[in-house]
């Protein structure tokens, strides 16, 4: 079987015709296998959804009980057979519950990795390498200038700033699902034990992480807090809130933003950020290239991001590589800076 007979890009997303399913479809389909809970990958309205328990729970939190006709939870390492095609879920290290999906038929194995990272993250299972013939990778940070370094060092920068400016609030923009919890976990690991203030939009998901045995608290809601209480505090909010009227309640805030994009100064300056924190939920350039090499794949498909450089890199290594050009990914998580989303 040729690889593109097993899996092929369609307008609805990656389709496995022989198995009768889609992976992370961007339109409603009969049968969907979902890698993780970010809204660009996990959309509502499918007939049946197969995903990890955490991913299903996150979809339920976001879309309500009836987000799909039926659901089935699958554990890491578990395999299902669908019309003769097997699919195995493996940790992707991206956010809680995130998975790569290894699709196999007739001795051919394709791994659709969804979004992934190979860097340390105390809030989710670490990335697991799966040998394969074809590796499908994202390329959000697919340029050699993106090297994310040690996230703990970035959090140390934040805490140092809190000690230099004890009377100002430190407002940290972070994507609500995954990034925020990882930043909080790293803040806790660094020994900061005071309550952390949360924007209303990230309360539910953060408490969900805690319910899955990831201790992050104590927390206080920003809502209703007095300006004087917020002095000296650390508060987390979605990036779009940083420049919103919402942020005016904080006393002379230091605006921080935790994102892989913060590696590039122009991006940080564009967003009016004072304290860029280079913390990413996606693999950096070294992570992407090391992973591709380690999978042993002879062919690489690139789903979304900066595909030019990554495809070029593969070709230099005599690997077959092509961009899939699927429209619809990268709308959430790290796809944007807090440029112009302010609402009143």
């Amino acid at each position: 079987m040729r690889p593109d007979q097993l899996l092929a890009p369609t307008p609805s997303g990656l389709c496995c015709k022989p198995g009768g399913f889609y992976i992370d479809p961007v339109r409603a389909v009969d049968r969907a296998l979902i890698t993780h809970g970010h809204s660009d990958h996990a959309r509502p309205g499918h007939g049946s959804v197969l995903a990890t328990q955490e991913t299903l729970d996150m979809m339920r939190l976001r879309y309500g009980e009836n987000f799909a006709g039926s659901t089935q939870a699958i554990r890491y390492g578990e395999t299902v057979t669908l019309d003769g095609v097997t699919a195995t879920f493996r940790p992707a290290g991206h956010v809680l519950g995130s998975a790569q999906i290894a699709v196999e038929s007739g001795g051919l194995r394709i791994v659709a990795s969804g979004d992934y990272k190979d860097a340390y993250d105390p809030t989710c299972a670490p990335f697991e390498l799966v040998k394969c013939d074809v590796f499908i990778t994202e390329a959000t940070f697919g340029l050699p200038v993106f090297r994310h370094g040690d996230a703990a060092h970035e959090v140390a920068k934040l805490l140092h700033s809190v000690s230099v400016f004890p009377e100002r609030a430190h407002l940290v923009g972070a994507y609500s699902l995954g990034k925020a919890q990882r930043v909080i976990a790293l803040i806790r690991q660094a020994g900061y034990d005071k309550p952390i203030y949360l924007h209303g939009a990230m309360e539910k998901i953060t408490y969900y992480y805690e319910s899955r045995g990831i201790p992050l608290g104590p927390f206080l809601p920003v809502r209703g807090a007095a300006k004087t209480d917020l002095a000296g505090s650390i508060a987390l909010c979605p990036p779009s809130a940083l420049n919103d009227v919402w942020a005016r309640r904080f006393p002379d805030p230091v605006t921080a933003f935790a994102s892989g994009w913060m590696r590039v100064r122009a991006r940080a300056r564009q967003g009016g950020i004072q304290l860029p924190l280079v913390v990413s939920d996606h693999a950096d350039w070294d992570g992407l290239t090391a992973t591709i090499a380690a999978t042993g794949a002879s062919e690489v498909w690139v789903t979304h991001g900066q595909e030019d450089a990554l495809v070029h890199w593969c070709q230099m290594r005599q690997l077959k590589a092509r961009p899939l050009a699927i429209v619809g990914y990268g709308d959430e998580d790290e796809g944007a800076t807090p440029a112009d989303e302010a609402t009143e």
Partner: protein
Amino acid sequence: MNRFAELLDRLAYEPARNNKLRLITDYLRATPDPERGWALAALTGALSFRHAKPALIRTLIAERTDPVLFALSYDYVGDLSETVALMWPAPARRVPSPASGGGLGRGPATAPPPDELRSSTSPASGRGEEAKAPTLTDVVETLSSLGKAELPAQLARWLDGLDETGRWALLKLVTGGLRIGVSARLAKTAAAALGEHTAQDVELVWPGLAPPYLELFAWLEGRAERPVTTDPSPFRPAMLSHAIEESDFSTLDPAEFTAEWKWDGIRVQAVSGRDEDGTRVSRLYSRTGEDISKSFPDLADALQHDGALDGELLIVRDGRVQTFNVLQQRLNRKAVTAKLIAEFPVHLRAYDLLHDGEQDLRELGFAERREKLAAFISKLNDPRIDLSPLVPFDTWDALTAARADPASAGAGEDAAAVEGVMLKRRDAPYVPGRPKGLWWKWKRDPLIVDAVLMYAQRGHGKRSSYYSDYTFGVWKSGPDGDQLTPVGKAYFGFTDEELLKIDRFVRHNTVERFGPVREVVHEPDQGLVFEVAFEGLQRSTRHKSGLAMRFPRISRLRFDKPPRDADRIETLERMLDRIEAGRATTVAPAIESPKAVVS
């Protein structure tokens, strides 16, 4: 160096002066000698070594990266030093932090993460030796003695040892492209805060000090006596004025004041004296104490007086004072050539005498100092240095008339270089800083037009949640009838309350968004009219309207006025004609010189 780089990085993003101060003081407190001294030298612009050329940096990176990947990266980042800093293939040698168990993704060992297979990119500089992060001290000391041929290999070794931010700062430093956004004065103020001292205290001892300033830090931290100044021509902190308001005049007695023209040049302090060996040491300082002698060798090297003069640096051709516009042309040139000097001869118009030889005059009243100054200047008999004339007046009305028409009130042909009048209390001592009530500046009435808000952009720092930067336009006839054409940008002049009003207007009347910029409705009967005040006007090929305003600001909000009643481009053109005919107000370039912002 990594720590210093982090400070620079943070300073680059921090807009507020007080916060910058805190960051620098924090760094100086936490960093040992001599590292912090070299850092202070870098911040005050006191470091000097031969800079590396960008071509060298390009060669280094070309030897280590694929050209296509470099091109894609450079294109994305847009800055050479930053691109190289980020993609430099440093040996995979990052120190794992204890909390994370490894920045490269070493999670709990259930399954081997692929980073085990991360190519440990070949140590770029080779030689097999482990690259160590250099300190700023290493860098400065090595660069001062390093031969040109050794620079590439040395630079590569340093880059191998540093992290991304460290590499960025090093590359900016060695190529001379470090723009820190911090004045020497600010850095000295931050150093002073290490102890119970003020910036003035530091300023007084500064001229006798050299990096890495061990004796300065020892004194600031109370471990040693105040360093003795042996500099024969030190800077004395300048006395500054307040802007006068209409309402102030009723409280002031004209008999207690003298008036002079406010010249539109550069405030300087010209100091000259002899060191222990009898050698003359002359310097020109800016009003913040930066040594600017190198930019004006024609004046600095000619100084022969013993003492400290305070005055205005101006271009004088054939006995006529030229406008700031002309001075700006000299300032714009990097190299001070003989041709430039001949074409733009500088001149000192003195208005105060702080030291006469060894004698400190600053405690005397202005009238007394002025008498000594007049005698000093006439004895000096230097064609490059003259006395700023007084403007005679006995009532405020008389002074108002003089200010409105300097040409007939004594300034004559030099009137175009007058930007207002200065009022000085006769009995005022020379007090560093900006004391209340002693010196006043009274600028000429600004030019005013009514213009329509077209685009608004978010501000920075405290203002980042407000649309506080505005592009405005006036009417111009075109093929499709009257259209608004942008004529300037302004981001101050309004009160906080007015800012809220404008911000609300922008948010409710956006027609399109471009990143942080919003296009705001601007139709004949829909939109917001600003009264815009500005200091000067000149022709400009860079602006679509062909005009550029100097120092524009929002002087009033005209919610009452429909945009159709705003001014037309012809109004501005008439103003420009008048200015060019030399009759009206200042002619000065449309730059926001720091001088304009703070004076």
